[in-house]
């Protein structure tokens, strides 16, 4: 049953991704409604997937999601879906058509990448002291750090759209694609909005993490790869935030930096989560 729901979710997101790309390539009026319907159908099924995981992992309950490597991917995909759901009703609704072309394939990719890890026994190992701490902070810590990283991903999406629109404007040929992309100024506003939220949420997540390690290990830094990665992410996001505030360099360059840094951080993120098993954060 779990596999049935899992592959149903993957197929729905895959179809929505295909339609979203088609809506950009051809006449959006034909494909966009299909994307909307499939996306809104996929959301409850994706939620059911989490419940199915908890149900079919007797004894471990919610922990099977929080601590397992598959669960981590699932949380990323679900959070991104919920974020996309929120954006549909937010002030960025007009740009939603453009966001989905990048976000939906990304969610699909996360789900597909997670498939080999469904049966993986690897999980975050917690000792007795950690468990006490975990009950208090870990959910909030994970929520804020993941949310912070996801908002950084949104600014990455915005940067792609900015660069794509800028290329179209400088190409000076057809206006066909321009009508499918949001205007430069609104994308820039979105990028500032998302990087600001990314910084705040990640800061809260890090403070909670630091508090947890302080309580459990009497130190703020244990030298694990994940800790290093999160501090590095924060520094990059803070840097981009400052660059945007100071307005000392042009939007084009900031967006190039945003794009490049996200790719580096994302690669490191995958590396630290999948390949490094050392440290209390690692999936062993």
């Amino acid at each position, binding site marked *: 049953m779990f596999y049935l729901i899992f592959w149903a979710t993957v197929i729905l997101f895959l179809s929505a991704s295909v339609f979203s790309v088609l809506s950009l390539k051809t*006449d959006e009026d034909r494909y966009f409604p299909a994307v909307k319907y499939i996306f809104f159908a996929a959301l409850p099924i994706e939620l059911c997937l989490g419940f199915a995981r908890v149900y079919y992992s007797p004894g471990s309950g919610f922990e099977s999601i929080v601590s397992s490597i598959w669960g981590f991917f699932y949380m990323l995909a679900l959070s991104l879906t919920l974020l996309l759901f929120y954006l549909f009703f937010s002030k960025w609704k007009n740009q939603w058509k453009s966001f989905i072309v990048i976000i939906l394939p990304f969610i699909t990719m996360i789900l597909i990448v997670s498939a080999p890890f469904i049966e993986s026994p690897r999980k975050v190992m917690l000792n007795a002291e950690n468990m006490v701490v975990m009950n208090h902070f870990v959910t909030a810590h994970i929520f804020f750090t993941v949310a912070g990283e996801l908002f950084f991903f949104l600014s990455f999406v915005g940067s792609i759209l900015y660069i794509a629109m800028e290329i179209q404007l400088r190409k*000076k040929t057809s*206006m066909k694609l321009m*009508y499918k992309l949001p*205007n*430069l*100024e609104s994308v820039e506003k979105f990028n500032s909005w998302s990087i600001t939220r990314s910084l705040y949420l990640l800061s809260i997540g890090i403070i909670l993490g630091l508090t947890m390690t302080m309580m459990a290990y009497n130190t703020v830094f244990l030298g694990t790869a994940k800790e290093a990665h999160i501090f590095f992410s924060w520094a990059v996001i803070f840097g981009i935030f400052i660059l945007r505030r100071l307005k000392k360099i*042009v939007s084009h360059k900031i967006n190039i930096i945003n794009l490049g840094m996200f790719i580096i951080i994302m690669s490191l993120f995958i590396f630290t989560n999948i390949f490094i098993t050392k440290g209390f954060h690692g999936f062993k």
Partner: protein
Amino acid sequence: MNKKLNRESIPEIGLLGMNHKTAPVELREKFSLNDEKITQYMNRLHGEGLAESVCVSTCNRVEIYFASNDMEKALDSILRALEEISDLPRKDFESILYKKYSKDVIIHVLTVTSSLDSLVVGEDEILGQMKDAYRKSSKEKRTGQVLNRLFHYSFKTAKKVRTETEIARNPLSVAYIATELAKKVFEDISERKVLLIGAGEMGELILKYLTKYNIKEIYLANRSFHNAERIAGGINREAHIIALTDIPAAAISADIIISSISTPDFIISQEQGREIVKGKNGQPLFMIDIAIPRSIDPATGRLDNIFLYNVDDLQTIADENLKNRLREVELAKELIEADVDEFYKWYEGLFVVPVIVNIQQKFEEIRVNELIKYRRKRLKHLTEEDFNIIEDLTNQIMTKTLHNPIMYLRNLDAGNEKEKKSMKDNVRIVEDLFGKGAIR
């Protein structure tokens, strides 16, 4: 009998017209009609064989859509009217006219209203012109059941074509393209400051387009203050008139610059462009240089946050947009075809349904009369229950007997005028054989 079900009262539809494809402007202008003339001629034609009519007279076409119960008389009356209007003998203009009937009229009106038959495919003016022509005819009670439905149908199709294809999405006018491009840079044009340099006609036109968005501030820089004042008056907006020497300072605070001034040197050099970018604190600048020779250094367009377009760039976009529109024509035609079939089914039904009802009524009448007659005499001994069985039986026999003729009528197809004539003949034969008045 219900008037709606009277087959003889349903007029056939026809069209007589000329357009930019069939007639040169020198001929078209001879047939051009103003509202007053349209009313005068069309009202007269209604006494001469036309049951319904809509006259469309634009710079690219003169068309008379009509419905009539006597096609030959109607056509002759229209041709006589056209002779009077143009002051030309019939033989001089008959070759440039197109005559269409039945389904071809439906295809034509839907194609025209959807702007597929226009000089500039996808332009939106024709829809308004068709609506106007229909509204006037309708107001003067020259339209009826057939043309009312046909025109409403064509407006619905035109809307569908505009929303479901990209035929009207990509602009073709240079001034409009410039405005659309500005909207791709800025979120809200109404918050923007515009600097117009020079008093060129195209620059003025772009400014007029932009002022539709209620832009925040307008700066006009020109050699002659008088011309700048004239432009400000033309757009009916308050504008700051500045000297050419003040352009660099005004450019820093402007978001959109339109230059149509011809000067021996660039009015904005690349170096000045750099200074403007610095002064703008990260804000983009949209520039249109429509002057020949160019007045803004093209190298300025390579600077970050500056989007510079010259007249050739705008024309390239216009050409590409036209190609995109033409690519959408096939899709639009498919939509039109589906709607034509739907409308034609309804239109055909107007002829066939009264005949079907007629036949059914006649058979029902015979059945009921015979049953009553037998009930009184030879079937007197039957119980109510037995008689009901006989009633059901006769009903079944009648339904099954009529099934084939009715299906035959419903499936009659008339694609062109010849088929239409044969269809009407067939309908008449079936009606004569089975309908009211046939069996007495």
